[in-house]
């Protein structure tokens, strides 16, 4: 694994963490049946933060970010996104989902729609944006992820890296204030990982609040302002990347880092 996500200099002028709270999670617990997946999670995310969540598989990191837009339901505690608490109220859920963008490991593009239609669907139906305007926005973001020429193709005709960039553009078309990434590069070939990471870095450079579950430690080192290490459903350690990588405190973190950075 390459140690760095990019060779270029990262522009940090807009990467500023404000003291406005974007997401607040208090004593959140979740069970799958009788299995306790998330235990007493406390986490406050400030606007402009770029958080990388790492940890062994099964540690609950995907479940955690999926709780933030209620793809998974939590049973105890509080999740407050942009000032709105997530309850079973469907109106709140749809409101939060339209403010929070999400990228999945397997992209989850809609295979029966073209790239452009994938990007305009939600703005047109959820935000009630006129079609022309939605298309202009979509083309703007497709240009940003550098695939405007594929706009009229179907997802099945694109490579994995291109599909993931479309998925990012599709989320951006909703003008989200927070972006969640659930292992966006784990299903990709090494050559394509870079193009997706580049897109994510550009997004970070614009000051987007991001939560990424990823194994790309180079990305964590260069882009994140905070790394969270999870194991067995709880937050074990969190710190600035420099400290986290060079000076891990817990034994569990040390073991994990030695395993994933060792080769």
């Amino acid at each position, binding site marked *: 694994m390459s140690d760095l996500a990019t060779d270029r200099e990262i522009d940090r002028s807009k990467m500023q963490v404000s003291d406005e709270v974007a997401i607040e999670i208090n004593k959140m617990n979740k069970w799958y049946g009788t299995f306790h997946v998330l235990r007493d999670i406390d986490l406050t995310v400030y606007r402009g933060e770029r958080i990388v969540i790492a940890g062994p598989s099964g540690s609950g990191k995907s479940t955690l970010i999926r709780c933030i837009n209620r793809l998974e339901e939590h049973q105890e505690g509080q999740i407050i996104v942009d000032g709105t608490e997530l309850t079973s109220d469907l109106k709140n859920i749809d409101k939060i989902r*339209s403010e929070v963008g999400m990228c999945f490991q397997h992209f989850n593009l809609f295979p*029966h729609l073209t790239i452009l239609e994938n990007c305009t669907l939600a703005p047109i139906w959820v935000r009630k944006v006129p079609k022309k305007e939605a298309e202009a926005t979509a083309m703007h973001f497709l240009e940003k992820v550098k695939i405007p020429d594929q706009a009229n193709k179907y997802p099945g005709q694109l490579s994995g890296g291109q599909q993931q960039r479309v998925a990012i553009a*599709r989320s951006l078309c909703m003008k989200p204030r927070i972006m969640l990434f659930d292992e966006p590069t784990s299903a990709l070939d090494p050559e394509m990982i870079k193009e997706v990471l580049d897109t994510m870095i550009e997004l970070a450079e614009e000051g987007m609040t991001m939560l990424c579950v990823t194994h790309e430690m180079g990305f964590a080192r260069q882009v994140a302002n905070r790394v969270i290490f999870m194991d067995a459903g709880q937050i074990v350690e969190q710190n600035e990347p420099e400290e986290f990588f060079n000076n891990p405190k817990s034994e569990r973190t040390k073991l994990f880092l030695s395993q994933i950075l060792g080769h």
Partner: protein
Amino acid sequence: MSNLHADTVAFVRDTMLPQKEPPASTVGLLGWGKKNLFTGPFNTIVTILCTAFIAYVLWMLIPWFFSPTWNATSLGECREMLTAAGKVGEHGTSGACWGVIRERWIQLLFGFYPAELYWRPILAFVLLAPALAPVLFSDKVPGKLLIFSAIYPFLFPWLLWGGTIWSPICAALGFVILYAVVKYGSEAIGQLGAIIAAVVAALVWWLFLSGYVQDGLAAVIPLAIEPVASRDFGGMMLSITIGVVAIACSLPLGIVLALGRQSDLLIVKSLCVGFIEFIRGVPLITLLFVASTLLNIFLPPGTNFDIILRVIIMATLFSAAYMAEVIRGGLAALPKGQYEGADSLGLDYWQAQRLIIMPQALKISIPGIVSTFIGLFKDTTLVSVIGLLDPLGLSNSIRADQAWNGIVWELYMFIAALFFLFCFGMSRYSMYLERKLQTGHR
């Protein structure tokens, strides 16, 4: 080249190879034949044997088909014609008796529908084409035609059964009421409340009010065409009427049932499961008997509930249950990620179903849906058992005629050809649709 290790392992290509033509024996007609008919000795023998068998069957059948009996007016006359033509085998004359088709084809198509009104069913079925076109070929036909598709369901029964023009208009008004109450009621009493109120209002209109309004309007402005009774319907016209209406109604009903079966709401789910399992567990013929005899016992005396309408309802419910299971298969085949993708963008349940889930689930289920349609269309022949004169029922009554007593093959063959035409058409359309909806290799 030496045998040194370095010489055999290290290799650098300095010129790239150009593209070459494939060998002549693998392309074109020759290549196709070699690949599909004559691969190896076993396949070659099978090909030769099958060709010989097909040739033999055709050799025996074709003389039977080419038979000079087109103008015969009875089976006896057919036999005389065949004897005169020298077509006599060991078991008497051998040859088709086409006279029965010439004499009775129009009856096999229209049953006992009044001959001077044939233009009405013909017009109704001709208009079916422009009504279906925007639905079936949405990319080739202007979308404005959809307005006609919306009017057609009211025009169709009026043309067939006749009567006052006010009855289809009043039926359509029910839908206007439904729409208006949903649209303007949502603000006042919420969406769910408005939908329930709308259904109740529409039912009240259809069941109690529309009859009076219709009679009143008919008395003031008597615009009517000659009514035709259901017992005069028959032949292919009857099969197509039942088939088309039941097909058109069973798909949406099937979708609703499939969604209901997947619902988290316990009551909705149990109702759907119960309905589907009950209908699938009962033969269609029992449902048709219920429609023809038992329903009269349960309905209040004096209710005039048309027999064809009853049969259509039963056929619709029957195929909707199968349709629901076919569509559920399509829903189950969709990856969970599609639901999550739709959810994560903030689409609500109905938007996600309509825009993301159903288009894909229906596409996956096309072969099953069309099989159900074809099955339903062929099942319409069962109505002969409850005394409706579909083509099969008519073939019995034609045989009851002294002149054609004993004729079997020609009639069944003609009816089979008619059904094949429609079923094969549906099958080809489904293949066209699958090709059209193919997007990439996923």
